[in-house]
């Protein structure tokens, strides 16, 4: 292997990108847009579900519940007439309404607390905060009596401020880098083939390993810059929860980027046009989004799908990134050693596969 020839390929690749503004934007602006959007989507929301409250209780308890609900930050409570409730659910002005019936207090004294909850029901996501608000109201009403309900909550990981973005953020850092690096590598390598320059490279003293290595180094430079950018943006701007070592997060991202580069080179051998290359996205990327634990924990998947999850590189990267960022794992953790080891293993296998499938001869 000649370092000089490898460097020539790497240099040429970077020269090409220097002039290709659009691809540079995809590499360095798109991740910020995607992550920024995700952050805004999760944390930027100020409106809480609108809930109507109809208090028909002849005793005291209904009013106590109603005022507790009005104080809740989970919902926006308004007072309504029970008879208007269904119409308001239908026209979409409310997602739920709660009725405290006339006998609410008297039944409560007999041992049954029975508010009526009417849910719009077509959007499961909006029902949960209503139920949660009702439970909080129950807790706060109970606290006014002789018995106080004060659970002492302790978190092993995360904390009271740990939210959805903290959970998704860790996984998305790995995914965004993986996805964009993969797409750019597969298309760039395919261009080499379709514009005929690969044939010229094959008719030169270049070794196949030198071509793959040169490409890998060039894309790795770009991927590392992108990884660093994504990481700084996530931690400094989005303030994604991080308990672990930043260098370690960067190392896992970089390993993931390297895997993506080599997967791109390898799969480009099986595509003849850019159009065919793009067809690998639903085939390679979508299953990883669904099954790598970004959205749903792997442990809750049906068993046959867990088998699939276990052979996807992104599963290990996501797990590793979450362990570091959420749980503060370091390399003394055996789970992190496994995750990093498997991603590195995928990377090596793909390098070998890429070199092996890059054919000098057409037939």
């Amino acid at each position, binding site marked *: 292997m000649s370092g000089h*020839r490898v460097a*020539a390929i790497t*240099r040429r690749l970077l020269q090409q990108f220097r*002039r290709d503004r659009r691809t540079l934007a995809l590499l360095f602006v798109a991740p910020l847009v995607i992550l920024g959007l995700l952050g805004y989507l999760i944390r930027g929301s100020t409106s809480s579900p609108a809930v109507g409250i109809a208090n028909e209780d002849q005793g005291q308890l209904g009013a106590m519940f109603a005022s507790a609900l009005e104080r809740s930050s989970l919902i926006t409570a308004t007072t309504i007439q029970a008879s208007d409730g269904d119409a308001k659910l239908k026209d979409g002005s409310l997602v739920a309404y709660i009725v405290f019936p006339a006998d609410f207090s008297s039944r409560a004294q007999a041992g049954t607390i029975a508010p009526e909850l009417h849910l719009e029901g077509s959007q499961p996501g909006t029902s949960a905060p209503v139920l949660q608000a009702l439970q909080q109201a129950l807790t706060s009403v109970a606290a006014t009596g002789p018995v106080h309900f004060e659970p002492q909550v302790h978190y092993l990981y995360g904390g009271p401020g740990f939210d959805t973005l903290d959970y998704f953020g860790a996984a998305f850092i790995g995914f965004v880098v993986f996805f964009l690096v993969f797409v750019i590598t597969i298309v760039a390598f395919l261009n080499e083939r379709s*514009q005929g320059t690969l*044939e010229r490279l094959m008719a*030169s003293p270049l*070794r196949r390993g030198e071509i793959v290595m040169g490409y890998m180094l060039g894309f790795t430079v770009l991927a590392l810059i992108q990884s660093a950018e994504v990481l700084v943006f996530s931690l400094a701007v989005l303030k994604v929860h991080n308990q672990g070592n930043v260098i370690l997060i960067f190392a896992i991202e970089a390993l993931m980027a390297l895997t993506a580069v080599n997967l791109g080179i390898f799969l480009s051998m099986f595509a003849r046009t850019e159009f065919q290359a793009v067809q690998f996205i639903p085939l390679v990327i979508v299953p990883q989004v669904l099954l790598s634990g970004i959205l749903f924990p792997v442990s809750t998947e049906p068993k046959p799908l867990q088998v699939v999850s276990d052979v996807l590189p992104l599963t290990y990267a996501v797990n590793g990134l979450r362990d570091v960022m959420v749980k503060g794992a370091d390399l003394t953790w055996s789970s992190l050693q496994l995750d990093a080891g498997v991603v590195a293993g995928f990377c090596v296998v793909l390098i070998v596969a890429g070199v092996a499938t890059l054919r*000098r001869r057409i*037939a």
Partner: protein
Amino acid sequence: MAEAFAVDIEGVHKNFGGLRALDGVNLHIKTGEIYGLLGPNGAGKTTLIRAIVGLVAPDAGTVTVLGRRMPDVDNLRNVGYMTQQAALYPGLSVEENVQFFAAINGAEEEDVTEALKLVRLDDRRKSVVATLSGGMRQRCSLACALVHKPKLLLLDEPTVGVDPQLRVQFWDDFRRMAASGTTIIVSSHVMDEAERCQRLGLIQYGRVLAEGSPNEVRALAGTSNLEEAFLKLAGAKAS
């Protein structure tokens, strides 16, 4: 040591699926000559050139280039290959393209300047290839093929899209390179170019129909021009 033959092709067969691309080709190309591969589109010229650089593996027969059996990756540093389409990096400048091919073939910076002068692109060295005309791209592609001063230069239809004036200059350059010992193999379907070659191989259906200097080929067919000679020889074989 100078080999008697720069390229020695013995009984080469190649099938692509059901298509017989090369059908028992024998060619012996002398060092320092300009050899023309002449034939219609689809005759097997490009496949033959690819077999010479080792990109096509023959089903049978042997290809020896500069005394070494192909495929031989190290031997490729002595070979320059200009593909049919101007295979260049459109986003790079003329100079960057030639520098890249210089680097992977072990040539120096002076060679880049020299190659650009030869194809008369030294005043456009900073231009991005995507902005060049077809003829200029063709010249840049030629510069990339000869920047490392190969002993064997393979040119697959090099003058397609090149204006007549430049074509004359190209051929002057080819002759000069041949005189200094470079062997040049040019494929073409333009008969007027064939006249400029020292020897010709007429190819059709993957076979060499006739071989010799332009005069010998004309004499063989008993015609006064190469075009008629080709048609007559092709017709004789087909029937």
